């Protein structure tokens, strides 16, 4: 059960960061913490339950590694988008991006 507590705490910290931080880089870092929390829960549960896990070759741990790769790919694209936006709008704060709406 400890693993559930750790994972939930990680996820909650990440979600709190996304909701409260205003700087884009901090928001992205918080998102990564959220994804980390979810993958810890997944891999932790696989350990505790100890059953044949998935049809995917390599078991659920391989899924955990896969999620790390996915998160890295997402972070790469997200950073590119954020840098493009910071250049175009000369700010990296979420609350100052109010051009699009209506």
């Amino acid at each position, binding site marked *: 059960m400890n693993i559930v507590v750790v994972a939930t705490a990680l996820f909650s910290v990440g979600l709190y960061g*996304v909701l409260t931080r205003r700087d884009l880089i901090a928001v992205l870092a918080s998102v990564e913490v*959220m994804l980390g929390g979810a993958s810890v829960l*997944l891999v932790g549960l696989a350990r505790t339950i100890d059953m044949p896990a998935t*049809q995917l070759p390599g078991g659920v741990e391989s899924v955990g590694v*896969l999620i790390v790769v996915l998160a890295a*790919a997402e972070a790469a694209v*997200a950073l590119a988008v954020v840098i493009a936006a910071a250049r175009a709008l000369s700010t990296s704060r979420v609350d100052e991006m109010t051009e699009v709406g209506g």
Partner: protein
Amino acid sequence: MSIPREDLIMLVPLMSAFATAVVALVVDAFGKRKASVGLAIVGLAAGGAYGIVLGVREDPRLVADLFASGGGYSAISGYMLLLGALALLGGWNWFTASPLGGGAAVLIAFVCGASVGLATSLDLFIMIICLEALAICGYALTSQARSARSAEAAVKYVIQGSVATGLLLLGFAILYGVYVARTGLYDTGVARGAGAPEPALAALGLIVGAFAYKLGAFPFHSWAPDAFETAPPASAAVMSSVPKIAAVVASILVFGIAFGAADTGRLPVLWMVLAAGSIIFGNLVALKQTSYTRMLGYSGVAQIGYVLVGLAAPSAAWTTSALLVLVCAYGLAAACAFLGAEAARVARPGWDRSIAGLAGLGRERPVLGLSMAVAMFSLTGMPLTAGFWGKFGVFGAALVDDSHWLVGIAVLGIVGSVVSFGYYGGVLKALFFDSPEDAPEDALVADELGADSEEPSRFSAMPAILASALAAVAILAVGIAPAFRGLEWLYELLNVLG
């Protein structure tokens, strides 16, 4: 793990999309942009056509316990690839003229492949991979207009999308942990029957929220109008259609199989709340839009509301097929409408995407005007268009239900469809009855994407007009066909769960 040869053939639509993307990527790396886009069109169209053939010829079955194929699954896979090819054809000017165009074509091929994977996979984690691939390509496609507005829209899309991915992942992890540590949908579904532990409720809420986000349903919609307004129209044509179709099929599979009928009490209530919110909010906000593409974004929220009515209705093969007809018809009409915007962008280099700026375009370019008119009629749900048969089936199934709430939501959906003619009709009025001289001055400021490098001639808008005309013909064909072949024929074609 070995897959028999006859099963491997069933995966051709999926593999052809990714193979097309990789080949187009390599060709684009050598600087051959036109060849890259051309290859992507041919590859997707060939894979799509083969998918339709498989759908008609083969019965639904499992491949390697990971993918559903044949029947409706293959037909929808093929359909999504064809939509991708159509959008690439329509955006030929943008994709071949812009330095980012070759990359955009590759991304669109990846979007199509990931959508096919999402719509046919029966494993939670293949779904996660496909959803994430879709999201990443969507962020990149949105930011490619290279304007300050599109950069801002892309940032908002990235943040909301990443949070939704986190929620979905947590939901799937709980589902996995609660139900015997299996990731296959059927395994969780079987375990589900043994009794519903309470943490499943948390998983249900998280997964519903994440899917509502991917579908662009109220109140998780706000990325959609921003992204569709600012992205290049040809990319928006793909983003507004293909991933939504895939997400609807995935919702049917996840909630139909993994959560099963045991949760009939809670799930329909969630869908109904989301449906009512989407229909009311989407229609009312779309009414006051002045930008054509932003209006299409908000109307997409309302359209997803109608789709959710179908998800809330008791799941029978008939309702599910009607639901798929509705979302496929929406995808086609939305793609047609966005390709109309692409044609308008090329035909009128100064167009700022406002509805007023379309004034008189329908009389200048009758084929384009008629195609956009057909798209608007189909989105409204007029008879003789594909959109009618989708709404007919979904609202019909909801209206005959015993639940008063469901009947109420269906009535709300019908009222919403009537209201929607207020803004779709506004486009028709601008296209055919307004003259360009009446357009306000500010409707002719420079377009964000800039004019194409070459001087626009009468023929430069041809690819976009051709693509939207093809879409319009398909909308009419599907709209008229049930009169000759019967409605069952149309529904049988899209039969999943069979």
